[in-house]
Structure formats: structure tokens, C-alpha cells
């Protein structure tokens, strides 16, 4: 019946034409019959028309049968609903605001989840692109990086058409041409077949030449992101083939990736891609390491294209075989190294559980908010229905079907919900765009440009309709079940009578319960936030400004850079209002940073285990600037120290020199011997929740060569 109705409705134009034809045939037959009885043709036609009646009205009547009355009813109901809602702006505003908050919270969280979990990569055949990461064979989550030789071994897999490796966090100084001030951008080092495997859309030019661009000494080339091309090169349409400045070298632009493609890692924004032939010039590693042959160094990420007719399961099985073979062949490095394949462009497996749990938590909270909003609006509607009792009773009394009145009331709540949904979507956009403006205090760019795509719009609309049903249905059913006579006699009729457990009581009770839960939750959140703020970080973060720059990329000589750093420091200190200034490779509470093993010399020559320390290279004045007090000893002397000196924190002192005064003692890290000149109190180093971490602070002006290594 419904399908037939829809079919009729869709064909209504054709059907109207056929109906007219049918009626015309009728008229002709009638006229013929009348003419047989002796009427003139003209008279017969007129008589036929007279007996037939109004052709147009008949057509209209028929049409209204196919075009279900509910459409016209719906239009009527909507018009009526708009009128009613406009007559009660206070009620409407309250209801729409409630619904907006509820739907807005849910839409925003869905938008975030959609962005983090469900967004497909803007590449051709995203379904067959895999990301291969390392995992421990003893269980535990995948997501580790791989060694470059492992990547080469993965190329044997028959189920994989091709495999590409990349390292996504390469900083570089990029300028349109020499002489122009360069700016730091972050990009990827990628194997030459990277673009053949990943297959993003190209706006200009092409990807790398898979047959050449990996070889050392090959002409250096670069692929730019759409963003970099726009922001640094003024969307130059003739950029392909041009030389640009990249870390003080000339490299040739071969292509510009299509807008939207910023690499395959969720949240990381790549601005350029350079081939492996340039691996040496990026100073990613100390000279002693040979990253392309070292199986111990885990640093590449791998993207792979599934061969036709093979599944991800086939690939996983084959990767297991390869992993077993490598374990047998290289027990020193690969004893515990397995591989894990999954569709590319997803949150890294090591984070996924956390991310999903996070969203489940957020969604639950926002669903609770939505439920409260629903209960709130339902209550408003119930209260209003009592006031409209007479209107409804009159409608029922003069013959409106209950279904019809329910439908009309539902149209009203649907309209409210849709208005709320629109408001909610607006709120969600406001929320996500303010997130977008939020700058994380880390050096490399993180993608927070959360776009609310069609899925979020759809989600909001569906949620609005469901919400409208949820808060509208029960009040509508209630309102149309009144005691007719009582209502008509304008007796003050109470809906649901006076009972302990009436519907409105239940609504209020659930509303208060949910609100209590939400209040308790948010109070707990606020408390832990406050506790975190009050936590002693060991540093004075008030009135502290941070500036980030990367002199290592300029290609200047070491002495020139040292002079530059001294110069910067001097000038910064001379700015009015600057109390003190200092340089550092890293500041406390950065999520990333270098570590090393430190051992203190022991007088008796006894062997103590090395201490794992966080490494900071800092200038004189660092501790003063950050408000970290000295426990013993003193700060670095001005100028470049002649010998290896270091400052350690109390935690490091306790581990490396237990029960001794470390001042003047020697310590060794990675073959370097340093003399300890000071001990400072322990600060938080990586996260605010950590236990005291041992740290070593090296003089930045002496250790400039080291900085290059430390930076990566």
C-alpha cells in the first residue's frame, strides 16, 4: 500500500495525463451515444460535459487520492505548528535551547569521533591501503615503528602489491628562493615508491620517480602539500620543475599533492615529502648510525598496497611468516618483533583503545545531557498540553481522529527538535572551531581542523528527529486522552491525575537523577583539573614565554650558530620587561625529548647500574628563568665551557651518586665524560603525573653539535 502510494505519487504527472485521456474517452463515448439518439454533435458534446461534471475538479480529486493526504496534512500541520510556536516565544525559546544543548553536545562529540575514527583518507582505493606497524610477539599493542631493513624484507610479501616506508616528522627550513627568510615546516622522508603506493590525488606534477629517487646522490626533489604551496609559494601554477630552498640546498619541486592530503597518519600534518636519497642531509641521525642497515634502529613507518584478490587477513598471515623468518635469522634484534597490518589512516593501534574509551565516555556524558534536555522539553510540552487541553478536546469533539491530533502535536515537537538540531549544529561548529584555534604547546603541527562533514549534518538531523519523537510522543498521546466532557466544561482537568508516580513526576525524577550524575562527574573532573593545576611542577610557569626556532636547519657552521644563539640571548635579555632569558633544546613537560644512560664514577670502582636520564641542553640562566632552585653547586659560567660540565637534578644525583656529594664528581654518558657542577631540585619532566625523573642538563653553547642529534 505504502509503496504503491509512493509509486503513484512519483508517477502523478503521467497518471494525471492518462486520467484526462480516460475521461476524454468517456466524454466521446457519451456524446456518440447521445448523437445516436438524434442530438446534434454540438448539443451532444455539451450534454456529455454537463452530465460528467467538472473535469478539472475530478482530476484534482483523483490526484489528492494518489498524493497521500499526509503530505498536505503535513504542510497544514507545519503551518499550524509555526503559528503556535510563534504565539509562545518564551516556551519555544526554552524548548529550543534545551534541545540545542543536548543535540549540540552529541553532534560535537560525534564530529570529533567522526574526525578521529571514521574519516577516510583522500587517496585512490583507500580500502586496499594498509599501514604496517611493529608489535611485540609476546602480546601487547601494535603501533611500533620498524627498522629500515625490516621494511625491505616486507617487500617479499606476495599479498602486497608494493610497500613504502616513510618517517613523518622531519623539520626543514623552506624558502621560495635563496635570500628569502626561510620558515620551518614539517614533512615526511619517504621511499621513492611512496606515491605509487599511497596514490593521493595530485594537483600539479607527480610523485617521485620510483626507479631513481631513492638512490643516494640523485638530484634532490620534493613534493609539496597543497597548504605549503598556497602559504609559501603563492599558489604558483608553474612551480613544478622550479628550484626552491630546502635547508639551504636547492631542490626541485616535482609535484603538489591535492588539497586534503597531509600524509597517512591521523592528526599529523605533512607539508612536504622528500625521497630517501636525501636521508643523509636531514641530520636525523648521528653520523655513527647507519639507519638504512641498522636493524636495531626502529624509525620508519610503512604503508602497503594490498594486491588484488588478497585480503588483509592474507597479508597478516604472510607478515607473520616473514616475522618468524626474521626472528630466526636475526635473533639479536628481531627476537621479539612481529608485524601488524591494518587499514591505513586510522588512529595508531597503541592509542586506539584509549581513544575509543575516551569517546565512549564523552558520548555517554552527552547522551545523558541529551536525555535531560528531552525530559525537560517533554515536561514543558506536558505542561503546555494541560493548558491546551480545551483546544485539543474541542478538536477531538468535532471529529478529528486521535491519530490526526497526535500527528499534529508531533509535528510541533518535530519542528522544535529540528530548530534545536540547527541550534545544536551551530553550537557544535562553535565548539570545534574553538578547538581548531587551540594551539598545542608542541613544535610540530597537529591536525585539529575538525570539519563537520555531511555525516555530522546527517547525524544531527537524525538525532533531531529521534529527539523530537522522544520528547513529543508521550505528551502527545497523553494530551489526546483527556476526559472530553470535563475538558469541554472548562473544569481544571489534570493530566495524569494526582498520583505519586505520574508521568511528570517520573520525568522530573529522572531529570534530577541524570543531572546529579552529571554534576558529580563534572565536579570530579573539575577537582582533578584543579588538583593538576595546584600540583607542584618544580618550575615557575607564570610570566614565562616560549619561542621556538631551529638554527640547526640553516646549514650554517657550528661557530656561526653558536654566535647566533649568544646573539639571540643577548638581544632577548635587553628587551624591556624581560627579567631573564635562556636557551634550551627542550622545556619541562614536553611530551618528546631525548634520553640517555648516565653513570656516575664510583670511588671504589664498584659497578652500579646506569641511570636513564632525560637530556636537556640549556644555557646559563635556564634554572633562574624557570625558577628551579639549586640544591648544591652553581649554574654554568658565562661563555663556552672549556671542559665537559653538566648539572643534574636531585633525582639523578640520588641514583648516580647515592649518599655522596656529586659536585665536582665525574659522570659518563655515551662515552662523554662530564664534571657535575650543580644539582637542582627535581621538576616534572614529561608529564605532570610522573614520579621524579632523573635529568641531566648540558651547556647548550658547548654541545651545539649534540643538539642536532637531540632535536630529532
Amino acid at each position, binding site marked *: 500500500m505504502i509503496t504503491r502510494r509512493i509509486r503513484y505519487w512519483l508517477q502523478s504527472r503521467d497518471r494525471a495525463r492518462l486520467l484526462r485521456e480516460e475521461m476524454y474517452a*468517456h466524454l466521446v463515448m457519451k456524446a456518440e451515444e447521445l448523437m445516436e439518439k438524434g442530438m446534434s454533435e454540438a448539443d451532444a458534446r455539451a450534454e456529455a460535459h454537463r452530465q460528467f461534471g467538472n473535469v478539472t475538479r475530478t482530476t484534482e480529486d*483523483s490526484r489528492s487520492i494518489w498524493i497521500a493526504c499526509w503530505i498536505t496534512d503535513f504542510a497544514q500541520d507545519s503551518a499550524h505548528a509555526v503559528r503556535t510556536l510563534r504565539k509562545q516565544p518564551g516556551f519555544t525559546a526554552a524548548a529550543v535551547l534545551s534541545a540545542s544543548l543536548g543535540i549540540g553536545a552529541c553532534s560535537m562529540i560525534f564530529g570529533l569521533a567522526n574526525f578521529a575514527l571514521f574519516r577516510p583518507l583522500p587517496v585512490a582505493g583507500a580500502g586496499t591501503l594498509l599501514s604496517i606497524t611493529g608489535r611485540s610477539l609476546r602480546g601487547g599493542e601494535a603501533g611500533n615503528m620498524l627498522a629500515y631493513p625490516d621494511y625491505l624484507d616486507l617487500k617479499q610479501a606476495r599479498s602486497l602489491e608494493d610497500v613504502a616506508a616513510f618517517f613523518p616528522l622531519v623539520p626543514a627550513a623552506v624558502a621560495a628562493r635563496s635570500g628569502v627568510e626561510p620558515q620551518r615546516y614539517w614533512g615526511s622522508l619517504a621511499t621513492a615508491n611512496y606515491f605509487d603506493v599511497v596514490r593521493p590525488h595530485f594537483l600539479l606534477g607527480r610523485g617521485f620517480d620510483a626507479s631513481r629517487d631513492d638512490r643516494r646522490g640523485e638530484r634532490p626533489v620534493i613534493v609539496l602539500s597543497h597548504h605549503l604551496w598556497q602559504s609559501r609559494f603563492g599558489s604558483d601554477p608553474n612551480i613544478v620543475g622550479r628550484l626552491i630552498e630546502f635547508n639551504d640546498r636547492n631542490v626541485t619541486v616535482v609535484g603538489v599533492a591535492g588539497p586534503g592530503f597531509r600524509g597517512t597518519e591521523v592528526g599529523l600534518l605533512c607539508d612536504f615529502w622528500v625521497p630517501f636519497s636525501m636521508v643523509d642531509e636531514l641530520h636525523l641521525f648521528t653520523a655513527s648510525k647507519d639507519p638504512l642497515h641498522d636493524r636495531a634502529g626502529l624509525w620508519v613507518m610503512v604503508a602497503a598496497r594490498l594486491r588484488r584478490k588478497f585480503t588483509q587477513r592474507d597479508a597478516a598471515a604472510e607478515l607473520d611468516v616473514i616475522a618468524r623468518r626474521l626472528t630466526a635469522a636475526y635473533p639479536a634484534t628481531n627476537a621479539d618483533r612481529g608485524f601488524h597490518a591494518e587499514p591505513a589512516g586510522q588512529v595508531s593501534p597503541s592509542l586506539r583503545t584509549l581513544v575509543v574509551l575516551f569517546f565512549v565516555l564523552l558520548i555517554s556524558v552527552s547522551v545523558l545531557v541529551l536525555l535531560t534536555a528531552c525530559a525537560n522539553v517533554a515536561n514543558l510540552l506536558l505542561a503546555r498540553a494541560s493548558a491546551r487541553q480545551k483546544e485539543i478536546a474541542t478538536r477531538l469533539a468535532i471529529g478529528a481522529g486521535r491519530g490526526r491530533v497526535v500527528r499534529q502535536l508531533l509535528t510541533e515537537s518535530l519542528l522544535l527538535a529540528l530548530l534545536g538540531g540547527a541550534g545544536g549544529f551551530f553550537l557544535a561548529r562553535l565548539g570545534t572551531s574553538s578547538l581548531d584555534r587551540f594551539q598545542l604547546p608542541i613544535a610540530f603541527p597537529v591536525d585539529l581542523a575538525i570539519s563537520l562533514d555531511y555525516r555530522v549534518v546527517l547525524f544531527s538531523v537524525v538525532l533531531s528527529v529521534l529527539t523530537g519523537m522522544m520528547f513529543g510522543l508521550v505528551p502527545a498521546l497523553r494530551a489526546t486522552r483527556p476526559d472530553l466532557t470535563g475538558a469541554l466544561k472548562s473544569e481544571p482537568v489534570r493530566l495524569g491525575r494526582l498520583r505519586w508516580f505520574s508521568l511528570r513526576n517520573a520525568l522530573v525524577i529522572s531529570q534530577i537523577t541524570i543531572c546529579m550524575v552529571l554534576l558529580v562527574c563534572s565536579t570530579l573532573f573539575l577537582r582533578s583539573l584543579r588538583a593538576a593545576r595546584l600540583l607542584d611542577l618544580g618550575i615557575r610557569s607564570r610570566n614565562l614565554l616560549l619561542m621556538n626556532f631551529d638554527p640547526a636547519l640553516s646549514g650554517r657552521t657550528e661557530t656561526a650558530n653558536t654566535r647566533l644563539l649568544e646573539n639571540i640571548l643577548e638581544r632577548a635579555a635587553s628587551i624591556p620587561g624581560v627579567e631573564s632569558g635562556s636557551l634550551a633544546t627542550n622545556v619541562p613537560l614536553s611530551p618528546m625529548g631525548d634520553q640517555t644512560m648516565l653513570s656516575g664514577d664510583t670511588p671504589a670502582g664498584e659497578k652500579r647500574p646506569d641511570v636513564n636520564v632525560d637530556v636537556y641542553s640549556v644555557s646559563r640562566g635556564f634554572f633562574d628563568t624557570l625558577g628551579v632552585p639549586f640544591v648544591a653547586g652553581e649554574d654554568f659560567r658565562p661563555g663556552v665551557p672549556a671542559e665537559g660540565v653538566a648539572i643534574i637534578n636531585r633525582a639523578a644525583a640520588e641514583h648516580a651518586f647515592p649518599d655522596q656529594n656529586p659536585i665536582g664528581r665525574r659522570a659518563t654518558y655515551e662515552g662523554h665524560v662530564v664534571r657535575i657542577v650543580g644539582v637542582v631540585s627535581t621538576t616534572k619532566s614529561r608529564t605532570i603525573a610522573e614520579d621524579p625523573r632523573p635529568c641531566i642538563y648540558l651547556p647548550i653553547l658547548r654541545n651545539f653539535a649534540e643538539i642536532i642529534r637531540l632535536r630529532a
Partner: protein
Amino acid sequence: MGKNDLLPGTLDMMVLKCLTRGKLHGYGITQMLKQVSDDVLQVEEGSLYPALQRLELNGWIDGQWGLSSNNRRARFYTLTAAGRKQLASEANRYRQMSAAIERVMGLA
């Protein structure tokens, strides 16, 4: 002459009844109604068509284009199985109703 000449709601039933004899086009149905009722029932012919559309939409009759006896294109309607069932139930209700009216009018 208006639709008032018919008892409300009886047109559908009578159209269905007419079609039990076999397929008919719209004009044929009006003719039959007139003949069988000895010209007592005069349908305003136009009002037949919305009724036919309604019956067809409900799946009670089925319309097919064909040629009339004088070779004119016309739409012929046949009764479907569902239509037959509908006719039976409507006729039954009608009989009960008219018998009740009869009894009331037969009061001395």
C-alpha cells in the same frame, strides 16, 4: 442532479459489484449503473473517476488500457481477489445497515 442521489459510501461498493460481471471501462460502469437501477441511480459521471482511482490504489481493482467495442482506446477495470473480499464485506455491512433501516421504517 448531484451526488446526493446516492447513499454516501455506496458508490465504491456498487462499482465493485458492477465489475463482478467482467471487465468494464468507466463509461461502461456508468451505463450499467443506470440500466440496472432503471435510471434511478444517476451518478454524476465525473465523480466515478476519483472513486476508481481510490479503488485501484487500494488494490481492489486493476486498470489496463485496451480497445473498446468501437475501437477506441479506453481503460478497462477488473476486480482483483482483494477487491472481491472487500466487496463481500461491504455488501454484508450494507445489508445489515439497510435491514436495520428497514426495521426502523417499518415501525407502525
